[in-house]
């Protein structure tokens, strides 16, 4: 029996090549619109770029705060994009998702989000982004493959403020990391004192 594949995300591996951004727009469930987020993290914080797909929460906050009941989960735990007849474009989900995933498109008055390429994953194929990602920062593999090829461990339990979240998508972290990752979002993106964000020399001085 083939072990079921899971989605692993490892921001640290991302090389910022934008392949996932291009591939995402090719997905048949939202053709022409790329829904993945690729963040260039400010140099002040890190040199990293980071892709963000929907983490497919077990009890998704996006669906709970949706007044139109437009976000549904498939029996296999994939949180779908908004139902077109229902979504009234209020952006509650956009603001409430702990991972900042859903996007609101004003011209069609609708929210759209990553649905793990349901057209593909429901027929055993890998999602577009994980298929093209050259560094496998986005990987759709079995747990066994993960153990054989990666040094870290995979966690899927989070706490945002005091709110616990468990996700279908795993994050790769160092071995022996406690299984729950606390996110406060408290770290200031603004360095103290007068600081020009475009002044690279000042960043370097700050270490």
């Amino acid at each position: 029996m083939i072990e079921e594949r899971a989605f692993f995300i490892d921001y640290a591996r991302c090389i910022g090549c934008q392949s996932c951004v291009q591939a995402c727009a090719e997905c048949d469930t939202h053709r022409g619109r790329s829904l993945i987020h690729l963040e260039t993290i400010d140099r002040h914080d890190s040199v990293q770029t980071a892709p963000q797909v929907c983490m497919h929460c077990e009890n998704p906050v996006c669906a709970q705060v949706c007044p139109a009941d437009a976000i549904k989960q498939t029996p296999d735990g994939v949180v779908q994009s908004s139902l077109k007849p229902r979504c009234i474009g209020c952006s509650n989900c956009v603001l409430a998702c702990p991972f900042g995933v859903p996007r609101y498109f004003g011209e069609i008055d609708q929210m759209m989000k990553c649905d793990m390429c349901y057209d593909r994953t429901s027929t055993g194929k890998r999602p577009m982004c994980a298929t093209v990602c050259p560094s496998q920062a986005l990987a759709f593999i079995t747990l066994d493959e993960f153990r054989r090829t990666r040094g870290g461990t995979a966690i899927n339990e989070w706490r945002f403020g005091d709110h616990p979240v468990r996700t279908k998508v795993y994050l790769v972290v160092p071995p022996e990391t406690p299984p729950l990752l606390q996110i406060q979002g408290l770290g200031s993106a603004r360095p103290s004192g007068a600081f020009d964000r475009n002044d690279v020399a000042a960043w370097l001085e700050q270490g």
Partner: protein
Amino acid sequence: MPPPVRVTARGADAAHAIAAGLAAAALVILGIYFGSRHLRDFDVALVPYAGASVFAAFGLGYRYAMWLRRPPTGLYWRRSWQLFFAPRHLPANIVRLARLAFDNFLAQKFIGRRAVKRWLAHWCIFWGCVLAAAVTFPLSFGWIHFETAPASLARYQAFVFGVHVFSFRLDSVLAPLVFNVLDVAALLVLTGIFFALWRRGLDRGALAVQQFANDLLPLALLFAVSVTGLFLTASTHLLRGYDFVFLSQLHAVTVIFTLLYLPFGKFFHIFQRPAQLGIAFYKEAGAASGQATCRRCGAPFASALHVGDLKRVESALGIRYATAAGDYQDVCPRCRRLSVALAQDALWRTHGRGPGKGTR
């Protein structure tokens, strides 16, 4: 004054919703009784249709009330009305509502921007159904009826709530239109279904996510209603009434089934959708109310009104973003993405190997 966010037990919700359903059904019954002048204009042959409508009204009242009991729905519903009826803005709001209703419901422009075939399908089905509903509900409730004029058998008179509204000659241009309006509606609906199936059959995205009960059953029901309706016309005009009784019963079955399905399946969006207009008012009021700024990057990311309301919805839902150290709801979506990536980065740093691309 912000409207309250209600949290109630499920049992209380259901009792409330049953009451709302009964009230909706009672309204329809009263409407039928008084609208048909104490049943004087009520056509007994149409009792099954009227009965199914009463059941549908109950279902719709129940489902709508249940829907409004969800904290986010209830809050935005009350908020929308509060903003709409704000005395200072009411006249402008009424004009705005008319414009929004035209763009979103009559022309359905936002669907056109999603895809042309989707728009064609939806527009045809929508107008076919509106036309059919505008004729059949008043007819089966006894609100309108037709009679031959006492003076001339070649003249027909139309009555609305028992009041004579207009009359026309049987050989006038109007006559075939009046008698065949339901056929026009059926053809519109069938055209819409054709486009819908065309789109659904070819669009690989739609093929992956569509479900029979949710997406295809409604089309099948509309198809059955339209085709059996057209059979009746064919039987009358082409086949000299061949099997008319059976066909009319078949048609009644399809219509009744559709009415009973109305509150539960995809058709419920007809009643949900107007909330979209409320959200338009909400967004405008939000834009005028000042912006909330992200506590991490300091940039404005949404209206202060929206973020404040969302926090109340979250606390009603038991989403515990608020802590003594601050509220995660004050972090903008981009900073949330950054925070998660940075948290992972910090773990690898403290692990002593740095992010170390390619080493793992």
